[in-house]
């Protein structure tokens, strides 16, 4: 019983860390975007202010049960992803459920939230929401291909489908998978562009054409929950990348440095890019990223 309580406490700590880090990253992204555009930009804690304001805003209306449940779906997915991804290796404060699941399980649990969110967006009845959702799902079909290819390459090269297994491989050999399976890393990073939805793949939100798409009917507390879920999810995904390709992290500082460096790839690529149309985005993922995915699989088959 005591162990369960400790685990729950640890999960709460993990959640808080993920929330704070994700929010800060969001703020830093805004700052960096501003600096690239030669602006001063908001302070790095701006996202916290926004979140607090959204939470303190009144929410007077809803469009039905699914609309209310959409944010909850999103939150559950974020937390589950966070719990399954090993945050810090061998640290009692960050327990995880990884020994219960594996990478394919993780892939599917990660799609659970967006679909729930899509249902919530659907019930608001706003046509823009539905358009945004179909765009998002199309884009997901796009980037899942190179992403899965890269994961399959890792799995067949190292004969394991669990994240901890892949981390052990890196710990034993002493090299990061990023270096020993470079093509898989390239494919995965390219897939990451679609995952984080920065320009040129921000076709889901698209404030100028879709009025922010799926979230267009959600204000106040709804938006607050989505924003926190998004932050936690960002952190969880970055940690997953670090675990898979950069050997994980043994303390928080190393983790923050690694995740931040990774996070800057889509952010900086996005700052200078305009937006793709949906079919262009989908086809982009089926071009070079898929090619690198193939290379990764070939490499894995040869080196198996």
């Amino acid at each position: 019983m005591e162990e369960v309580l400790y685990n729950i406490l640890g999960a709460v700590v993990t959640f808080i860390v993920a929330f704070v880090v994700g929010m800060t990253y969001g703020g830093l992204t805004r700052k960096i975007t501003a600096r690239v555009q030669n602006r001063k930009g908001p302070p790095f804690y701006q996202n916290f202010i926004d979140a607090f304001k959204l939470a303190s805003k009144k929410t007077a209306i809803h469009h039905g049960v699914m609309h209310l449940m959409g944010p909850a779906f999103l939150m559950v997915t974020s937390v589950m992803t966070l719990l399954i991804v090993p945050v810090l290796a061998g640290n009692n404060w960050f327990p995880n459920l990884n020994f219960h699941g594996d990478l394919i399980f993780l892939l599917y649990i990660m799609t659970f939230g967006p679909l729930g969110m899509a249902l919530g967006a659907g019930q608001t009845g706003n046509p823009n929401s539905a358009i945004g959702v179909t765009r998002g799902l199309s884009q997901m079909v796009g980037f899942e291909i190179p992403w899965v290819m890269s994961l399959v390459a890792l799995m067949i090269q190292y004969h394991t489908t669990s994240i901890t297994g892949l981390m052990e491989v890196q710990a034993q050999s002493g090299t990061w998978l990023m270096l020993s399976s470079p093509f898989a890393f390239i494919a995965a990073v390219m897939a990451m562009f679609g995952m984080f939805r920065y320009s040129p793949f921000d076709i889901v939100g698209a404030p100028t054409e879709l009025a922010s798409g799926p979230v267009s009917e959600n204000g106040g507390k709804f938006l607050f929950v989505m924003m926190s879920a998004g932050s936690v999810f960002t952190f969880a995904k970055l940690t997953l990348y670090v675990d898979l390709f950069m050997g994980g992290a043994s303390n928080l500082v190393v983790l923050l440095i690694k995740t931040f460096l990774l996070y800057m790839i889509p952010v900086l690529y996005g700052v200078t890019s305009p937006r793709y149309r949906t079919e262009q985005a989908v086809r982009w993922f089926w071009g070079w990223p898929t090619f690198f995915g193939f290379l990764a699989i070939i490499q894995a088959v040869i080196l198996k």
Partner: protein
Amino acid sequence: MVNDKHSQKIVDFIQNWSRKHSIWVLAYGTGCGAIEIPPTMTSRYDAERLGVRGAATPRQADVLMITGYLTVKTLKRVIRVYEQMQDPKYVIGFGSCTINGGMYYDSYNTINVLDKYLPVDVYINGCMPRPEAVLSGFAQLQKRIAEGRADGATQYKENLEWYRANQKRIIPNWVMPEYNW
């Protein structure tokens, strides 16, 4: 604990502080004033450093910005947008046209005084107000929010009948849902 007077004061202070530093603007681009918004938001003046940011839909927005003259036709839409926004919400009247009609003071199809139809919290004078003036307007709004005096929405609720009467006088075929937030 929330009912306690002192703690309520602290909560109010923190909330007002966060509201002050996070202003999401729904720029309802009526009239010619909309052209001043891009320079305000972009590199040179960069309103984002004050926490001012664009919002896509009324549900997400805090501030409704009326940028210039309002025709009778647009007024109906603006009222609808304002009523869809969630509390707390503020209105910024932008340019002379929203104050007294400006150069369209005798036009047959624009309204002259915005305050008669929507509760304006801050006016920004000028025709056109330059971005500096817009930023000063935002600063003024922030000040009022921090002091807790930006209560246009409450006034609108309290004096709804008066506002409705004014609105209905201008808008001939009134088919709008009731405002009952």
